[in-house]
Each structure stands twice: as C-alpha cells, then as structure tokens.
C-alpha cells in the first residue's frame, strides 16, 4: 500500500501520479479492455466459437438494427429502467436521509432491513408480487374484484411500469447505500446558516441538502438505470411469461434457444457494442458533474461536525414508511420463501396447503453440492471486495484528484463493465480462458475466473461510492498533512482512510453482498468445482425445483442474518469512533 497514493508534489500545484498507483489503476482496465475486445470478436461470429463451425459475419448487427421487435424491446426497457430508478430513489433516498441526518432511533435496524434485501433473490420478490397483483390469482386483485365488482383484476403487475415498481423495491437498498454516504459525510454548517436566516425545512432540503447530495444522487441514478437495463430476474418472472420483453429477456432468448440449435452469443456481443455507446454518454454526463466537484466539497480542514436533525413525533411517520417498505419488499418475500420451502409443491397459501407443511425439501437436499457452493462463495466474498476496494480507491483518487487526461479513461473504463450485460463479460472471460490463456494460466473452471469478472463488474459501484466521498473531502487536508511532513502512505492511512472509512466499509460489505447474490456470471462460468451458492439456488429454481431452491435460500438467509447484524454493529461503532 506504500505507493498507493502520491500526495501533491507541491502546495496548490498539480498532483503527481505515482507509477505504482497508475499501475494499480490500469491493471483492471487491461482486463476490461481484453474482455471488451473479445466481445467485439464474438459480435462478428455465428456458430460454435473456437471451432470450425464458426463463421464471421455482420449478420448480428444487421439483425439488431433491422428487427422491429428490437425497437419494442428497447422502448419497454427504457420505461422499465426509468420507473425502477424513480421507485428506488423514492424509497431509498428518504430512508438514507432518515438514517444519516436525523435522530430517528434504531438505525442499525434500518441498515439490517436494507441489507437483508440483497440476500433475497429477486425471483422471490417477483413471485410474491405475482401472488399479490396478478390479474388472475393476485390477492389484491381478487379483493378489489369482490369489493367493487370489477370484471377482472384492475391491477396488472406485468407491465413495464408494474415491473419497474417491483424492481424499484429491490433496488431501493442500492439507492439507499449509494446516497447514505453522501448524507453521512455532509457538513451541516450550510444548513444551519440557512436555518439561522429563516429558511424553512422544505427550503433547506430543496436548496441546500439535495444540491449538496447531487453527485451521490446522480451516481445512484446512473448506476440504477444501467441495472434496470440489464437486470434479468424480475423481467423474466413477470415479463417473459406475459410477453413483455426487456433487453435482458431478449438476450436470454438468444442465449437459451432450447431446441432451435445453437445459442446466439454474437447477438449479445452486438448488443454490448451499442451499450458501450450508452456507457460513453452516461460517463460523459457523470464527468461533467465531477468537473464541478469542488462545489460539493463539504468536509474541509476547517471543521467537520455532522449534526442530526431532531425528528420529534415525525419519527413515528418515518418508521411507518420504513416498516411498510420492509413489509412489502422483505417480509413478504421472506414469508413466501419459508412457505415454499415447506410445501410439497408451489400453490397459493390456503388452509389445505398449510396442513401439508413439512421439512421434506431440507432432507432431500444435495448437501455436498450446497457445501461446495458455499465454499466457493466464501472465497469470492472474502477476496473480491478486498481487491475491488484497492483498485477502486486508486481509480477514484486519480479520477477526483488528478487533472491528467487519463482520468477520463479511468472513469469510462471503471463504469463500462457496469453498462454491459454481465453475460457479455462472462462470454469474454470464457473465450479468454479457453482459447487465449489455455494451460498457460489455467483459469477455466476455477473460481478465480469468476473472481476476475466480479472485480471488474463491481468497480463501477465501488468507484461511484468512493468518488462521492472523496469529492466531499477538501484537498487542503492532504496538503496540510504534506506540510506536516507525513509520507504519502501515512497521509493516506491517517487522513484519507479514517474519513473514507464509512464509505470503504460500505463498499466492502455491499460488494460482498452483491458478489454473494450474483448469478449471471456464476451460472455462465460455473463448470464443476467452481459452482457458487446462488448458482445452486438457480439450478433448483430453473429446473422447476422452486421448493428446494427456497429451502437453500432460507438456510442461507438464516445463517447470514446474524453475521450481517454483527457487521453493522461493528460498522456503527467504527463510525462513531471516527466521528
């Protein structure tokens, strides 16, 4: 770590870039470049790649540009991505503000509720909402039909906006964590000054708090929009079955032809090529925000006194909001998982089904497979966040502090994997391991190949979170340390890391959780001994074994919940000590 950071070469001057820092930043960029190159290679092929049956063609691009169905898919995807982002922000942003800027009691519980959301696979949230709001079997619809005498259920969850709502419930946790750091590190002096000058609560929120939090909010928007574009589970459960197609389900149909011959990976490569353009536009937009970064520096050497807003009786309203969100997005799917894990087959809850509950699916589980998956998942959850934090810190520092042009490349490179459907990265990694590295570096079938893709795929999330926090730390703190004679490493360790510790801790645990639940890459690159736990759950669910899948999910949720509680307890204590 000694050379991770090079501090200002001279006061007020340009920042010197250490070769080691640059190398650590460019290492993941090299991997990303190789994977994207492979993606382009794949996009010009049809047939079985790497074999004599593969042919080079522009057909994938032609099909993508001329098929009117693709246009309909893009329109649905756009509506879905925007609505899921709005719903996620509508829920996540106020909860982040309540957790970090107010005196609301029980904050550890808030973090636990928001974190638990990531442990619950989206397939259960989707299935839960099918039982609530499906026009035919939805409980809510049946209740409305009985009450108002409608001919059929008036609510249809299987629309792009309906699915966006369900996806928004899942993504609210991410919106929460991406913006909580911003609220946590915010200096209240501007708000206090506004209050002294007679500005009301609404005015302060609108004119002071939200503008200060804007980089974090924009980062969250960009991040969640791209997730909305690429997400698969909820569009698959709610949309595919009802012929409402998104980009992810369109890709799914191309990659899983099931009966009509070979998967069309080339199409996914061509989609990826277009996604790079979108990533470029989003990165440019985000870059413009960063260029105004100095306007958002709220943590300076002149004083850093986070203060909390007393809520008084409004705390009850705050907890009602959080409680309702927890009920519909966490408690309901968890109950559904528990119910499905104990029923002989999946059917709506009824007295008859309740009388048939048993533990038969726990007895019949392949525990050897579960343990194998658990072992690999533990390796990934332990290693990937560490590497991501190291790379992300180097990249973020260069992006935020440096004035070199390389920062644009780094910012674009770090964001790019997030904008690409993960299956594209997985295809690239597979081809790389099989046909380029081969026995030279035997990554094929190993957990390290999955780890490599996870690291580059999670860089966007980590750099967004650390960028936001770094933007709020005035560089005068580093300059002061430099004047006081601290070495580069000691300045980073004594000044930046303590101030960034909440952000780094958050990046750590959220990267671990995202790695824990990641599915697409794990399923695609899993061969024999590198299968992960989510892939085990998916294997049961995908093959019609929803009850066994529920049993595995329930066991893992019960095991992980105490660990998460301990982590957040430790995290809160650590934060208190920093403050």
């Amino acid at each position, binding site marked *: 770590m000694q050379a991770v950071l090079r501090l200002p070469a001279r006061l007020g001057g340009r920042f010197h870039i250490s070769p080691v820092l640059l190398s650590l930043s460019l290492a993941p960029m090299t991997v990303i470049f190789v994977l994207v190159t492979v993606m382009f290679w794949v996009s010009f092929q049809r047939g*079985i*790649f*790497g*074999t004599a*049956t593969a042919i080079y063609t522009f057909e994938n691009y032609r099909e993508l540009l001329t098929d009117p*169905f693709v246009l*309909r898919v893009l329109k*649905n995807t756009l509506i879905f991505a925007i609505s899921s982002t709005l719903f996620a922000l509508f829920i996540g942003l106020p909860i982040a503000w309540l957790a970090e800027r107010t005196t609301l009691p029980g904050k550890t519980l808030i973090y636990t509720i928001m974190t638990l959301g990531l442990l619950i696979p989206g397939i259960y949230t989707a299935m839960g909402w*099918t*039982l609530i709001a*499906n026009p*035919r*079997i939805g409980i809510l619809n049946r209740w409305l039909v009985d009450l108002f005498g409608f001919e059929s259920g008036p609510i249809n969850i*299987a*629309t*792009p906006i309906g699915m966006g709502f369900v996806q928004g419930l899942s993504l609210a946790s991410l919106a929460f964590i991406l913006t909580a750091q911003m609220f946590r590190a915010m200096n209240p002096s501007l708000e206090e000054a506004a209050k002294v000058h007679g500005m009301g609560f609404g005015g302060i929120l609108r004119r002071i708090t939200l503008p200060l939090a804007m980089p974090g909010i924009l980062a969250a928007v960009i991040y969640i929009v791209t997730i909305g574009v690429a997400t698969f589970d909820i569009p698959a459960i709610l949309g*595919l*079955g*009802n*012929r*409402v*197609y998104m980009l992810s389900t369109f890709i799914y*149909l191309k990659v*899983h*032809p*099931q*009966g*009509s*011959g*070979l*998967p069309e990976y080339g199409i996914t490569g061509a989609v990826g090529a277009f996604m790079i353009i979108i990533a470029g536009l989003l990165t440019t937009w985000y870059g413009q925000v960063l260029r105004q970064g100095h306007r958002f520096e709220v943590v300076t050497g002149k004083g850093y006194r986070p203060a909390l807003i007393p809520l008084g009786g409004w705390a009850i309203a705050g907890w009602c909001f959080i409680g309702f969100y927890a009920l519909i997005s966490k408690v309901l799917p968890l109950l559904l998982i528990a119910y499905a894990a104990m029923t*002989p*087959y*999946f*059917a*709506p809850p009824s007295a008859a089904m309740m009388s048939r509950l048993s533990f038969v699916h726990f007895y*019949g589980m*392949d525990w*050897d*497979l579960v343990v194998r998956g658990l072992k690999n998942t533990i390796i990934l959850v332990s290693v990937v966040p560490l590497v991501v934090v190291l790379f992300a810190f180097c990249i973020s520092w260069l992006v935020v502090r440096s004035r070199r042009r390389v920062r644009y490349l780094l910012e674009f490179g770090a964001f790019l994997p997030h904008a690409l459907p993960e299956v594209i990265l997985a295809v690239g990694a597979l081809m790389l391991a*099989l*046909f380029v590295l*081969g*026995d030279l570096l035997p990554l*094929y*079938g190993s957990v390290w190949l999955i780890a490599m893709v996870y690291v580059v795929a999670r860089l966007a999330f980590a750099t967004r979170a650390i960028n936001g926090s770094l933007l709020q730390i005035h560089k005068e703190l580093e300059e002061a340390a430099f004047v006081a004679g601290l070495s580069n490493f000691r300045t980073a360790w004594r000044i930046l890391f303590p101030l960034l510790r909440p952000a780094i801790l958050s990046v750590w645990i959220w990267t671990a959780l995202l790695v824990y639940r990641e599915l697409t890459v794990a399923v695609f690159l*899993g*061969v*024999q*001994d590198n*299968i992960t736990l989510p*892939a*085990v759950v998916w*294997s*049961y669910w*995908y*093959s*019609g*074994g*929803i009850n066994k899948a529920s049993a595995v999910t329930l066991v893992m949720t019960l095991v992980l919940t105490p660990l998460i509680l301990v982590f957040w307890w430790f995290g809160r204590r650590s934060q208190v000590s920093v403050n």
Partner: protein
Amino acid sequence: MIGHVRVIVVSVISMTLLFAETSRAASATPLAQLIEGAKKEGTLRGQWSQNSFGGSQGLAELVAGMNKKYGLNLKPHFTPGPDMQRIMLRLAQEAAAGQPASTDVYMGNSQAIFDAMKANVLKPTEWASILPRKIPSEQGFDPVAPEGVAVAFATTVVGILYNSDLVKGKDIPRRLEDVLNPKWKGKIASTPYAAGFRELAMPGFLGREYVIDFTKKLSRQIGGLLRCGEAERFTSGEFLMLVLTCGGNDVNVLQSTGAPVAHTVVEEGTVLHIRYAGVPKHSQSPNAGALLTAYLHTPEAQAMLWRDDGMDLHVYPESKMKKDVEKVRAAGGKIALNTPQWLASLKGYSETQKELEKILREGSGSK
C-alpha cells in the same frame, strides 16, 4: 507318416481351441475392459439440469446401481448445468480448447446429439457389445445415433400440461383446436421455443401451413410464454395449460407430490422426444461414462429413470411410457420420433422453428 499326421491333427486342434479361447476372450473384452478402466478412474462426473434424470439424487442412485452390478466403487460427482444444448456447446468448446470435458457422460436430447455430430464431440462406440440387453426394434426407430456417437435410453411424449383442479372433465382438451376456446383466452401459455409445434409442422405430419396458421391463432389466445420447467406457474393457477410441452415427464414426477397437474396427448398425434447418452471424446473417465450409458438400459435403471424423471425408453416391454404411445396409436394419431437421423433428413426445420418462435413471441397480444 502317422506321427506327422498326429502332429498336424494335434496342432489343428490346439490352434482351434486357442482361436476359440481367444475369440471368447476378445468377445468379452469391451465390457471387461470398461470395468477395469472404470476401476482406475474412481469418479464419474455428471452435468445436466437439476431436474433432468433426477439431478444429483438421480446420478447418485444410478452410480450406486452400476457399482453393484459391475463390482465398482465409483464416486458420483454431480454439478447442475444449463440446458442440454448449452452443455453440448460447452463440451464442443472444451474439446476445441484442449480442456477436459466438464461431464464424463453426456445425456441430452436429439437436437444436441445432432449438433454434436457436426462438432465431432462424442466418441463413436460399438454399443451393442456393451449394452446389457438388446434394444427391441421398432419400425423407423434406430436407437443408435449415426456413427455410434450416442444411444437412446428414454422417451418423453409431447402433449398439453394442465392444472387438474381448474381444468376438469369436458374441459380437458382432446384436440389442438380445443385450446382455442374463448374461455381460455389469456389463461393458457406456450413455450418461447415452440416446443412440439416445430415437429408437428414437418412434412408427413400436420404440415407447415396448418401449424403456422394454428400457431397464429394460439398466439392471440395465450397469456404468456413459459419454459417447460416452470410447472409452479401451473400448480399456482397463474396459468391453466401449457400448449405444448417438451414432454409430460415432469408431470409424472409432480403428481407423486399431490400437485394438481396432469398431462394429455392430443388426438392429432404427438412427438416422441428421445433422450440419448454418449461419451465425450475428452471425458476424464470415459470408461465409467460408457458403463453408465450401458447401465441405463437395465430394467432397474429404467425404473429409476421413471421414478426420478418420469421417463423410460418406450420400446422396452416394461416401459410405462409405452402406454401413452400406444394410446395415441390406438386413437389413430400420428407419431413423430425426434431423433438425430430424423433431424438430419429434414429441410427447413430450423427456419420453421424460428418463424413459429417469432409468431408466438410477437403475437397480437404481445406488448
């Protein structure tokens, strides 16, 4: 002179005996060699979908059975994999890259075997010499895939899956047209890959024109498209029927749990989806893989396949699947056997399938 004759006679007798013994030894060689080879291999890796052939539990039972039959001590090592086509694709890429195969035995459908023939992935084998019994012959059905790369071991029958609590009595479809009844509009589903229809559209069956016209009507009738494995969408009542299935085998398994599902074959006819097993050329335990393939043909393995995955090979006398096939034959319905040979003989199969998929995907009801 007599001495010479005696020497010649003795020599001839000795040579004859030696030749007979050598021939006997040679005839026993393939199976014995496989057993000896499997003893050294120690592990049998299997990879297919968790609900195919009983998943991990199915492989464990099959390996336990073959250990007993052949005096082995193989350990099963199951890893759930994607669909049959994608596993075959994976095998082809591993072979091209010089990597060991991720499964020691391939078990999948005829389309994947057809793909494997083109990619030269599976090892040609003289199956007759190692199978425990002769597969009964049936007109138009050769159980051994071209060049001996795989051998058939199970059959599924394509039809209509329905929720038996919500579709009863006269509502149960007898003919394809029955599913177009307006009362089912928006309540039934089909598959995104046009399972069953692609075969029905072939010459000599219902024909391309009829099936495309029917699929257009069906596309306006269905509420959605589901994978064949999504049976919970029917047990929950979200959808009432799946038209058509990839085979009714999962219903056979689900019914044993008391789930309200049933499967019916329409009078016009059906498609028999044949399941094949073969050994990848780059298998890490090729002997164990070949032995498992042979073991699948024993009556006990056929019973296991029925119990774990609701399927067996319809030509064996004890087959339960045979009853479904005979019912269709008795009703005068046509039967198409989806085999690699059949696929190789067809023209325009892939194009027709794509057209059917497009109709189902982009039907007037789609958004």
